[in-house]
C-alpha cells in the first residue's frame, strides 16, 4: 500500500485492474485505492508478471503492506512514499474508479445504468438511485454492527469516521450518546459518503496548514511583472495553433516559475531533519481548486525541461483528470516547489502557506490591464503580481528576491522559452 499523503495511515483497495499471470510494466495502472479522501490510481513500479494478489477488494490495509507479488522482481507493488497533500471529494465527470467500485459493490451492471450526465457518462447518483430500492450497505466493522443491533441504533444514521466513511464501534457509541434527533437524519449512503469526504478533506487541509504555520517561519516577497511581451508573443503563437491548443498566460507563468526554481536551487527542495535538502530536478506542484470544493496538488515532473506548449498540454490534462478524480499515484508525489495561481479567481495577489516539507510557494494573481510607466511614458500594460512565501530557516530574503527577479526576466524574453 503506497503512502498517498503524509497523514495517510491506511488505504482501502477498491479494485484490481490486473490478475495473476498478467504481464505488467513500470508505470502501468494496476489498482485503484481509496485514501478515504479520494480514489487514486496506483501504478506498478517494476516490470514482471503478477504472481499473486494478496489483498482483496474492500480490504483495508496499512501503508507499507504488500498488495501483490510480481514474478521476476524481488519487490512487491507499491511505489515509494508519495505526497498527496490535500484531496477533495470526488465528483466524477467520467465513470471514475469510485463509480465503477460503487456499481460493483452494489452488484449493478454499469452497462445497464441509465446515465443522467449530459455527456452520456454514468454518474454516481445514477448508481445510487438504482440501489435505493435495495438496502444500501455502508461499510461497518463487525463490532459496530453487533453494538448497533444490541442497542437498536439505525446504522444508516451513523456517521462513520473510519477509512472511506466506514462505521466503527466508537461511531455507534457516539450515536447512542447523541440526542435521538440525530438518528433520524438522512439515511442515504451517498450523502454520508460525500459528507465524510468533505470532512476528511477539510481535516487534511487543517492538519497540514496548521503544521506549516506552526513549524515554518514564513517570509513574504512580492513584485509586479509586466506581461506585455509574453502576451504579444502568445497571441502570435495562438494564431497558428488549433483553437483547442491555444496557450493561456498560466502556462507561461508556470514555466517561468519552474525555470526560476532551477536557477535558484536554494528554494527548490525540502526541509528535513533540521536541514535543507535541494531537489535533483524541478517537480512543480500545481495547486488546483476543484469545483466541488477542496484542493488537489498534481505535479508537473521536471517542469523546467518542458516548453510552453508541453506545460500547457500537461496543465490541461492534469486539471481535467484531477476534476474527474482520475489522477495517478505518481502525479501526486512530493513536489520540490509549488505554485498557487489564483488569476482565474480574479484576485490581485496570493500570499501562500508553504506545503511542508517544501520551503517555498510561488503565487500568481490575476493578469490585469493597468497604467504603467515604460521609458518615462505612461502606458496601459497587462500586469501580474508575483509573490513568494519562503521558509526563513532555509533562506533569507535576498535569495527570495533573486527568484522573483528571475521570474520577471524570463517573462520578458518569452521567445527563449
Amino acid at each position, binding site marked *: 500500500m503506497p503512502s498517498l499523503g503524509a497523514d495517510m495511515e491506511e488505504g482501502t483497495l477498491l479494485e484490481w485492474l490486473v490478475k495473476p499471470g498478467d504481464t505488467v510494466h513500470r508505470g502501468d495502472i494496476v489498482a485503484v485505492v481509496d485514501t478515504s479522501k479520494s480514489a487514486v490510481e496506483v501504478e506498478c513500479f517494476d516490470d514482471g508478471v503478477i504472481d499473486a494478489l494478496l489483498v482483496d477488494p474492500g480490504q483495508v490495509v496499512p501503508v507499507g503492506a504488500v498488495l501483490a507479488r510480481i514474478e521476476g522482481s524481488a519487490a512487491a507493488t507499491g511505489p515509494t512514499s508519495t505526497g498527496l497533500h490535500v484531496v477533495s471529494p470526488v465528483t466524477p465527470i467520467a465513470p471514475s474508479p469510485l463509480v465503477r467500485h460503487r456499481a460493483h459493490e452494489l452488484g449493478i451492471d454499469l452497462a445497464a445504468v441509465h446515465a443522467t450526465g449530459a455527456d452520456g457518462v454514468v454518474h454516481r447518483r445514477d448508481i445510487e438511485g438504482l440501489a435505493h430500492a435495495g438496502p444500501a450497505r455502508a461499510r461497518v466493522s463487525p463490532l459496530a454492527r453487533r453494538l448497533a443491533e444490541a442497542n437498536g441504533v439505525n446504522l444508516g444514521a451513523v456517521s462513520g469516521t473510519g477509512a472511506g466513511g466506514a462505521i466503527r464501534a466508537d461511531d455507534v457509541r457516539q450515536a447512542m450518546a447523541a440526542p435521538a434527533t440525530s438518528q433520524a437524519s438522512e439515511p442515504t449512503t451517498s450523502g454520508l459518503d460525500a459528507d465524510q469526504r468533505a470532512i476528511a478533506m477539510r481535516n487534511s487541509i487543517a492538519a497540514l496548514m496548521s503544521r506549516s504555520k506552526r513549524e515554518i517561519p514564513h517570509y513574504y516577497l512580492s513584485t509586479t511583472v509586466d506581461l506585455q511581451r509574453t502576451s504579444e508573443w502568445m497571441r502570435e503563437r495562438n494564431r497558428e495553433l488549433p*483553437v483547442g491548443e491555444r496557450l493561456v498566460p*498560466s502556462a507561461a507563468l508556470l514555466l517561468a516559475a519552474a525555470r526560476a526554481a532551477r536557477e535558484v536551487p536554494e528554494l527548490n527542495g525540502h526541509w528535513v531533519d533540521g536541514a535543507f535538502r535541494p531537489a535533483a530536478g524541478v517537480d512543480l506542484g500545481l495547486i488546483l481548486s476543484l469545483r466541488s470544493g477542496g484542493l488537489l496538488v498534481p505535479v508537473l515532473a521536471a517542469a523546467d525541461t518542458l516548453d510552453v506548449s508541453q506545460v500547457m498540454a500537461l*496543465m*490541461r490534462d492534469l486539471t481535467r483528470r484531477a476534476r474527474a478524480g482520475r489522477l495517478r499515484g505518481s502525479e501526486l508525489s512530493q513536489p520540490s516547489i509549488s505554485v498557487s495561481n489564483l488569476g482565474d479567481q480574479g484576485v490581485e495577489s496570493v500570499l501562500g502557506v508553504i506545503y511542508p516539507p517544501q520551503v517555498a510557494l510561488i503565487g500568481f494573481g490575476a493578469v490585469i490591464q493597468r497604467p504603467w510607466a515604460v521609458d518615462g511614458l505612461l502606458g496601459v500594460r497587462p500586469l501580474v503580481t508575483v509573490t513568494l512565501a519562503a521558509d526563513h530557516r532555509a533562506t533569507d530574503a535576498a535569495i527570495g528576491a533573486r527568484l522573483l527577479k528571475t521570474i520577471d526576466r524570463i517573462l520578458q524574453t518569452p521567445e527563449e522559452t
Partner: protein
Amino acid sequence: MTPDQARAMLETTLREIVPDADLSTLAPGADLRSTFELDSLDFVELVDKLSTRAGFRIEEDDADGLRSAEAVTQFLVTRSSHVGQQA
C-alpha cells in the same frame, strides 16, 4: 444560424463543460466565466467546442468578446451568416 439555434448550441456546449449547470436562470447579459466559475482552461475548451460545432475558426480576439450568452449568440449568428455567404 438563428438566435435560438445559437443559444441551444451554447447551452449544449456549456453542459459538457459544467455538467450541473443551471441554464434556465441564465440571464442573457450575465458573465459566463463568473456565473459558471470557468477558468482560462475551461474557456479555451468552450471556444474550441463552439468553434467545432459552428464549423468555423474563432480567433482569440473574437473569443475575448464572448463574455455573455447574448454576446455568444450574436457572434455565432453574425459569423455564420458571413460563412454562409462566402460558401
